[in-house]
């Protein structure tokens, strides 16, 4: 009896001491994040820019969220949900007692308003929810989404930034039927653990903690997202400790920083893929043998080991490794100049003898050196490559018009489903910027990607994905270059960071804190 009491007493003491030390998550917590890209708008229904999502994501909540550090879905603003047997209706049961930052109550009407706004404004983010036909309010806290047709990854779409729930209060600021866009560009109107306190253009965005948050409050009082346009400057600021955490530094810079005292480099595989689009509607590239020859000619090792210093892996097929649906037995091209030359000859171009243009954009500094390596590789089989550097907006415009031969590109999935890499990349309906940037058309592929969207049986879906990956690779629709590791650099006193491959540029601010 006495022993038991003693044990209980010791345990309680231990717990007490433990909680004392861990409440060194003190007040007065400001995290300074160094961003190399400037955001343009804070409106989640307008923005498709990771730089903006970083600031926006945690000012809002979504019906469904990612489980911390995983791609699994967990309840968010919705306590639970169900999918109808035919897959055509999603019913969400919402939490009660939540208010938006401006005080308006959160309920089914608010959810309906949010999606009406998203789909009504019909800008880029609405594409993620193109499968929704309409939204019905069933009860005060129950809402139905009626789909146009079954969409297997449908529920995951609600965890993306495009699924941020914007409060109906924005309509108080509406001007000329703009759905309050002008106002929401500069403010936040969500239910999330933070809200936008200040945005000084070209300088910084300040997020402040929402003290009335319905869930677990954030430990940080403020998050300052400081705009540092030069990666070299960001590095300096991290080293001097003026900035606590930063990303999008170059591979070389990060390499040099590993070993700096007080600085931690976090690295993990991600789903971000860098690849090259080959315009299948253009001469030479419309012949699959030419595309295969190109795939055999590229010096993959040079790119991965020298340029990327081993922080990337060669892609194996169009679906990234680690994503459900990835087929690890899919063929992977390796450099084989003889095979490449042979294929070119078969296609009717012995020794090459033609010129292709490849596009790069200065905003992604890694593309230029990769293009140079590709240029050199293809020169060895007789194909001359001209590198053209365009402003980001011009490049995207040319992609959308098909006005190019080859171009660098990168892609990250919005939701954790292979569909992000198959439907968008291979469906002939998605020619151009929408996703099929090789302007590829194959009736069999169209059939496969469409069916994989609506197929509800998971095994059959996997089979469909396998077929898609095999055709995508043997048809050499894209140059499958690399799957990069995600790297983020932070000071030792930053705690609580948990990596989520689906939230690449949105570190989990609500769980992070400073411990100096």
């Amino acid at each position, binding site marked *: 009896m006495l022993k038991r009491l003693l044990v209980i007493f010791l345990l309680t003491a231990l717990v007490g001491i433990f909680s004392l030390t861990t409440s060194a998550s003190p007040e007065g917590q400001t995290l300074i994040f160094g961003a190399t890209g400037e955001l343009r708008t804070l409106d989640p229904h307008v923005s498709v820019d990771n730089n903006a999502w970083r600031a926006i994501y945690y000012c809002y909540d979504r019906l469904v969220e990612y489980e911390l550090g995983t791609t699994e879905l967990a309840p968010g603003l919705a306590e639970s949900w169900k999918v109808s047997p035919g897959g055509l209706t999603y019913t969400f049961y919402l939490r009660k007692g939540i208010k938006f930052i401006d005080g308006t109550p959160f309920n089914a009407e608010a959810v309906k308003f949010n999606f009406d706004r998203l789909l009504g404004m019909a800008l*880029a983010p609405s594409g993620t929810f193109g499968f929704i036909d309409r939204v019905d309010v069933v009860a005060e806290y129950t809402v139905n989404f009626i789909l146009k047709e079954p969409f297997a990854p449908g529920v995951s779409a609600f965890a993306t930034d495009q699924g941020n729930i914007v409060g109906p209060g924005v309509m108080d600021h509406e001007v000329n039927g703009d759905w309050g866009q002008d106002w929401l560009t500069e403010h936040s109107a969500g239910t999330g653990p933070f809200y936008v306190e200040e945005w000084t253009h*070209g300088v910084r965005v300040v997020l402040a903690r929402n003290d009335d948050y319905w869930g677990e409050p954030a430990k940080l009082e403020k998050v300052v997202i400081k705009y540092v346009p030069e990666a070299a400057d960001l590095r300096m600021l991290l080293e001097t400790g003026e900035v606590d955490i930063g990303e999008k530094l170059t591979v070389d810079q990060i390499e040099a920083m590993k070993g700096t005292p007080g600085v931690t480099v976090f690295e993990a595989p991600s789903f971000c893929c860098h690849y090259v689009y080959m315009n299948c509607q253009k001469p030479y590239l419309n012949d699959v043998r030419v595309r295969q020859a190109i795939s055999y000619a590229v010096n993959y090792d040079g790119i991965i080991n020298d340029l990327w210093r081993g922080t990337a892996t060669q892609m194996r097929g169009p679906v990234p490794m680690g994503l459900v649906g990835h087929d690890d037995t899919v063929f992977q091209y390796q450099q084989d100049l003889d095979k490449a030359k042979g294929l070119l000859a078969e296609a009717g171009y012995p020794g090459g003898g033609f010129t292709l243009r490849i596009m790069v954009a200065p905003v992604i500094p890694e593309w230029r050196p990769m293009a140079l390596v590709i240029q050199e590789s293809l020169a060895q089989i007789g194909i001359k490559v001209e590198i053209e550097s365009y402003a980001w907006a011009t490049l995207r415009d040319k992609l959308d018009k098909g006005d190019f031969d080859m171009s660098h590109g990168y892609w990250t999935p919005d939701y954790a489903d292979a569909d992000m890499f198959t439907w968008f990349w291979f469906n002939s309906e998605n020619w151009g910027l929408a996703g099929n940037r090789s302007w590829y058309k194959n009736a069999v592929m169209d059939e496969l990607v469409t069916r994989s969207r609506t197929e509800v049986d998971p095994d059959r879906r996997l089979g469909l994905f396998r077929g898609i990956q095999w055709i995508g690779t043997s048809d050499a629709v894209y140059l499958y270059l690399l799957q990069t590791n995600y790297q983020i650099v932070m000071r030792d006193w930053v705690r609580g960071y948990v990596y989520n491959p689906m939230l690449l540029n949105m570190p989990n601010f609500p769980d992070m804190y400073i411990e100096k």
Partner: protein
Amino acid sequence: MNLLTYIVKRVFLIVPIVLGVLAITFLISHIVPGDAAQLMAGPRATPEIIERIRHEHGLDRPLYVQFGVYIAHVFRGDLGKSILTRRPVAADIADYFPATFELTTTALLLAVIVGIPLGIVSAVQKDRILDQLSRLTSVIGVSMPIFWLGLLLMLFFYMRLGLLPGPGRITGASPSHITGLFVLDSVLTGDWRALGDSLLHLVMPAFVLGYAVLARVVRMTRSSMLDVFGQDYIQTARAKGLIERAVIYKHALRNALIPTLTVVGLSYGELLGGAVATELIFAWPGMAHYVVGSMSSLDFPAVMGVTMVIALIYILVNLLVDISYAFIDPRIRY
């Protein structure tokens, strides 16, 4: 003619130039490849949405109509809405202008305050060591690529030695916003920490930007001082036995001021241009930086707005220089 008439006449002459400037910026932004409506709509928009946006912004009307509408708006102060930030361009410019103004003015002040005395000393000490040195640094100054100088200075004083702060206008919090000019605002609000902070941040960029102008001012002051020294009336004054210093300051300087003023006025355009590279390197959130950003993103309302504003400022500065000539030297007012 008297000063007022001269001023009025000059101002009138400016109007067609301003219109010309507007026309050129308008034309340039329409050579830009890329469909503006498409850019505004975003990558996943359908053709219907693009058409709607095109119509909303009047992009489907003939060019001369668009130009006319644009001019009407400009005179109302409406410079259009930026495609990227979706704010009025005028608001964006108002945000970024103070930073550029602070930078270019400091650079100019530096060039003049250091340059004129240096030029005088150079002229007085003609061909001696000090003169040779200042001439050498002058030549280097006008030949130096600004962006390179900036990078080197940053490498030494910031990265290697840690003597000066890094890029940006200020490390800590900015002073409360009154004019947007950090130095002025800090003084006005008594925020001494911010004053020191922002001044330190100004050192490198202002020096880099002003170096070329400094070199020119030194050269110009020196050569016009030498010209004046050779004049008869100066020889007379010397022969009369007036003290050397009085000779220099009273007569030579006043006459040497006019060519120097020319240089200063003409250099302002160079400063505005040089600000582009300087702002990029030192992450200075000013207009030049904004221009590059909008040009890269084909944000043509912003490009038109900023180019026009910068050109107008330049025209204004030249006008002021012209008027000051007329003020100083009545012979010029033909």
